[in-house]
């Protein structure tokens, strides 16, 4: 049974193929594929020939593979008939020649019943055999030296034409008196056994079929108009005898001829371009084909020789016989409905559907085309092999694409992809599957660039897209390309996070971790063989960063600009005192630039507010800053965020190694084994208070310690700018003591300058003003202080309160409003000191942090033990400020102002002897 069925559909077929002659080109013996296709390509270039003495054009369709069972249907539609055979063979010695020639004959036998002519191309043979002139054999010394191949092919086609023409004339001029043989398709043969061959019915059937056959031949021979006439007559004859299969074929022939007439550019798209070089420009192609066709139509010679219907040459005849574009589709529909009556004609029906779709695509009638395709989907051929299924779905996809149904096209392409890896296939083609899946992406409006998703909310078919991504991941894994699967999985996690259920999130991350354990995710774009590039997928949502803030240095390390030195030069940039343009520019700059500085070599911090959207604990490793402008040593952090955490502060630190302007561009993380570089610019909904900061040259660091013991009590809660360590000393009036302050340079830069200023509480100046004295010169002699070196600075404290005018003194001492009891008994803890915050804002957190750097600023506190006679409380205040700074590159920054603050506290000492 199977032999009668044409089993292999040609999915690339189009209506113009009806006018072509089928020539099979095959290798004989062992011919390397490369050589064969080189010649095959050259042969294929000869696809249309203007026949010498008439103005008709012959079209040739070349195949290097053609199933012989399809050839059996050659009578039904002559373009399915193999009429020419070209064989290519290697033959290097004369002694192999007879054998080679024998092989050629064997090959000829396969298509023997239908062949008009054949050729053998022999490569490599030299000698006397070559000298004998033969028409059916051509000898070439090698594959390079064969310029005449095209010429040979042209001659060959002309010989084909002669046979064709003779057959056409032979059949066309058959007189009704002769017995017309019944043409039939393979599966019909047994049906006609024992049928009455003399009945009118039978004769009509024979006539009709023969007419149709002649129509086919005319079409192939380039006589479009004649073929139309024959087809029309055939349709009438066959309709009257209800010979549906052949009626269908006649109608289809009619359609094909009309299509060729209406659309000279071809309907086949790509396959058309293959056949007619340069048909990429339809208009040009039209010009090339049209004149020939018209000349044929009005060529009286051509028409009278066939002697059938001379009046077809008139314009009226042409208009009448040729179907209108609308009719073409109706006739196709009719033909297909007739074909569908025959199970064995499934392939014919399918091909007719495809041809009709191609025509409709040109007519831009997508809706009708989709109906034809829908029909094609349901045509049940025999059990298809897996490859054929893949081919079928791919072609359906291509056709849907052709009519602009991108989604449907993507659907079928995906089905084809799934078919490539069907469980029944022994060696699943994951590569092909992956390639096909990639091609479906546009149809599902999915791009693999995460940037397309960062803008606004996701708008697409999440469920469908997610499925596709999962399939891509799986296919790439089975392909043995873990980098690809990691990339796709990261993409899935990043873009579809909002649509994943909690369980899915867990599953996806788990498999991602599995993959990355073998192949960590990178930030490199992955280039695919198809020319597609997969951009990197940074996990900007794992964790989600809401706020980025560059932090100032701790108070003790903060650089201060030395206004005194730079004061005059502040506004040298502009000659104008005020310019609105400059002011405007500054305003813009201010948006980005932050008004504090970082110091080279000091640890700088950036605070991020992050949260974890996952329903489980998120471990973020290797989280650090991405910067530009300055060499920056980032010190990555690892953090672990609790499940679905709220906003969570994370501080990223690093050390600038050079000076200049540093821009914090983003941060990098490693989550689930995937490295991500997240740039702030690409993060939606992020709040940042500027990301550019100036880095100034390294400054020295100074640690200060005193000889006096530390005080347990903080007399002066430090303000933001001052860090103090309190030391205490108790002295009697008239007593003196030395306070030794050790200055140690713990930085990397030499300390060049030291300045000591004293600030004495103004109101108490007259009382305590001269308690302290120092000699700076001795200390300065040790400067510049090299890193690691220690300098000492001595302060003499001499208490000399003048009790001669006691009233005043006591008055002053009690000014601070502390009530003092008259009893000479008191506790040192009762001392009350009001802090002297010099109008600067208190910033406790910073000062706390700064406390870690207490070596920089030290306040010494002398607690003064007043003589017992004194019954008053006082809190005089002295402040001495030592300043060190370094000067370089014309910028002067004060590294750290530190102060030794002496607060004259009062306490009621125990009565002492």
């Amino acid at each position, binding site marked *: 049974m199977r032999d009668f069925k044409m089993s292999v559909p040609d999915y690339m077929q189009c209506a113009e193929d009806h006018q072509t002659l089928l020539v099979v080109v095959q290798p004989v013996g062992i011919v390397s594929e490369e050589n064969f296709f080189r010649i095959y390509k050259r042969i294929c270039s000869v696809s249309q020939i203007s026949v010498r003495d008439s103005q008709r054009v012959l079209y040739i369709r070349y195949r290097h593979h053609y199933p012989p069972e399809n050839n059996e249907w050659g009578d039904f539609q002559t373009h399915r008939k193999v009429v020419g055979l070209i064989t290519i063979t290697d033959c290097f010695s004369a002694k192999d020649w007879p054998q080679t020639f024998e092989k050629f004959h064997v090959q000829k036998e396969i298509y023997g019943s239908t062949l008009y002519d054949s050729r053998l191309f022999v490569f490599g043979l030299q000698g006397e055999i070559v000298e004998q002139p033969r028409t059916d054999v051509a000898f070439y010394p090698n594959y390079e030296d064969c310029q005449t191949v095209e010429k040979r092919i042209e001659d060959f086609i002309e010989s084909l034409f002669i046979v064709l023409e003779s057959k056409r004339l032979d059949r066309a001029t058959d007189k009704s008196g002769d017995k017309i043989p019944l043409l039939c398709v393979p599966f019909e043969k047994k049906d006609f056994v024992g049928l009455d061959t003399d009945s009118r019915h039978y004769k009509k059937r024979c006539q009709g079929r023969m007419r149709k056959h002649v129509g086919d031949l005319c079409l192939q021979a380039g006589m479009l108009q004649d073929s139309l006439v024959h087809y029309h007559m055939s349709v009438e004859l066959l309709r009257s005898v209800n010979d549906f299969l052949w009626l269908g074929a006649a109608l289809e022939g009619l359609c094909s001829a009309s299509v060729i007439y209406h659309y000279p550019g071809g309907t086949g798209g790509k396959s058309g371009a293959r056949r007619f070089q340069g048909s990429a420009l339809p208009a040009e192609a039209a010009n090339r084909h049209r004149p020939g066709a018209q000349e044929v139509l009005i060529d009286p010679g051509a028409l009278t020789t066939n002697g059938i219907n001379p009046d077809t040459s008139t314009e009226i005849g042409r208009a009448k016989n040729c179907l209108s574009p609308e009719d073409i589709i109706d006739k196709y529909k009719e033909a297909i409905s007739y074909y569908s009556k025959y199970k064995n004609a499934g392939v014919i029906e399918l091909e007719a559907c495809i041809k009709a779709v191609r025509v409709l695509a040109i007519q831009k009638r997508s*809706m009708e085309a989709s109906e034809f395709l829908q029909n094609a989907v349901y045509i049940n051929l025999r059990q298809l092999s897996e490859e054929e299924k893949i081919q079928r779905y791919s072609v359906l996809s291509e056709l849907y694409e052709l009519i602009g*149904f991108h989604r449907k096209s993507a659907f079928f392409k995906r089905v084809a992809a799934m078919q490539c890896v069907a469980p029944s296939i022994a060696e699943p083609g994951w590569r092909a599957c992956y390639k096909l899946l990639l091609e479906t992406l546009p149809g599902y409006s999915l791009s693999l660039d995460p940037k397309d998703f960062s803008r606004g909310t996701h708008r697409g078919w999440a*469920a469908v897209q997610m499925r596709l991504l999962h399939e891509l991941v799986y296919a790439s894994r089975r392909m043995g390309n873990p980098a690809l699967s990691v990339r796709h999985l990261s993409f899935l996690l990043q873009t579809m996070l909002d649509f994943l259920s909690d369980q899915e999130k867990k599953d996806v991350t788990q498999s991602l971790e599995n993959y990355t354990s073998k192949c960590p995710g990178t930030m490199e774009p992955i280039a695919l063989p198809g020319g597609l590039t997969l951009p990197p997928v940074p996990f900007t949502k794992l964790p989600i960063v809401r706020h980025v803030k560059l932090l100032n240095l701790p108070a003790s390390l903060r650089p201060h600009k030395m206004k005194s030195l730079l004061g005059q030069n502040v506004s040298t940039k502009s000659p104008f005192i005020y310019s609105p343009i400059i002011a405007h520019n500054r305003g813009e700059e201010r948006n980005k630039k932050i008004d504090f500085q970082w110091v080279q070599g000091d640890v700088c911090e950036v605070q991020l507010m992050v949260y974890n959207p996952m329903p489980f604990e998120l471990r973020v490793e290797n989280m650090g800053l991405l910067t530009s402008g300055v060499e920056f040593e980032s010190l990555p952090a690892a953090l672990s965020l609790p499940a679905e955490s709220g906003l969570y502060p994370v501080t990223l630190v690093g050390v600038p190694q050079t000076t200049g302007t540093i821009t914090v561009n983003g941060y990098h993380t490693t989550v689930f084994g995937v490295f991500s570089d997240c740039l702030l610019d690409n993060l939606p909904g992020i709040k940042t208070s500027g990301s550019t900061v100036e880095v100034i040259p390294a400054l020295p660091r100074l640690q200060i310690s005193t000889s006096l013991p530390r005080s347990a009590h903080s007399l002066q809660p430090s303000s933001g700018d001052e860090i103090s360590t309190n030391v205490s000393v108790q002295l009697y009036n008239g007593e003196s003591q030395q306070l030794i302050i050790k200055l140690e340079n713990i930085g990397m830069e030499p300390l060049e300058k030291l300045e000591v200023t004293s600030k004495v509480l103004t109101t108490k100046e007259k009382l305590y003003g001269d308690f302290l004295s120092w000699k700076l010169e001795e200390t300065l002699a040790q400067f510049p202080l090299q890193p690691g070196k220690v300098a000492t600075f001595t302060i003499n404290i001499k208490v000399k309160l003048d009790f001669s005018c006691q009233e005043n003194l006591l008055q002053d001492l009690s000014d601070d409003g502390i009530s003092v009891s008259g009893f000479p008994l008191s506790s040192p803890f009762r001392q009350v000191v009001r802090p002297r915050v010099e109008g600067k804002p208190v910033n406790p957190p910073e000062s706390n942090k700064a406390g870690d750097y207490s070596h920089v600023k030290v306040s010494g506190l002398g607690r003064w033990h007043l003589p017992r006679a004194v019954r008053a409380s006082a809190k005089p205040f002295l402040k001495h400020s030592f300043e060190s700074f370094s000067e370089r590159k014309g910028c002067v920054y004060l590294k750290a102002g530190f102060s030794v603050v002496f607060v004259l506290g009062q306490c009621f000492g125990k009565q002492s002897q």
Partner: protein
Amino acid sequence: MAVCIAVIAKENYPLYIRSTPTENELKFHYMVHTSLDVVDEKISAMGKALVDQRELYLGLLYPTEDYKVYGYVTNSKVKFVMVVDSSNTALRDNEIRSMFRKLHNSYTDVMCNPFYNPGDRIQSRWALLPVSDPVQVGPAFCVLLPSFCRTCLAILVAKMQPFGKQGRKGLFKL
């Protein structure tokens, strides 16, 4: 009745999609997604017709083996797609039309919801209430949310009226 109902935004992404056999939801996603090709094609063909004469009902988009897919497009190019079982012969064109009309009304009600952002997914559990009860799909698409919406609007209108009247009075006096 209907086994799947989908509301598709003007830009062809789904606003709402729900199907009764929830176990094979993806199949309906695919079905609705591919049907958009036909919807697009029909709309573009319709674009030539006069706008006011346009028929919102698109008719049968395509039949599959087990289902029939129908389409409907509002004037603002929001598409409704309904999948019905093809074995259900009781559903004639007229029934489908009336189902779509009800769906359209429900959609309008959802749009009236002051808490709904046009273009967002329709999240409400009750919104459209399409297919949870196959028998009910025809007559009662939506019950709770639209009525809530209506009361909501009524309250709003009632609250605004005094202001409106005063304003108008003031205007008249002037």
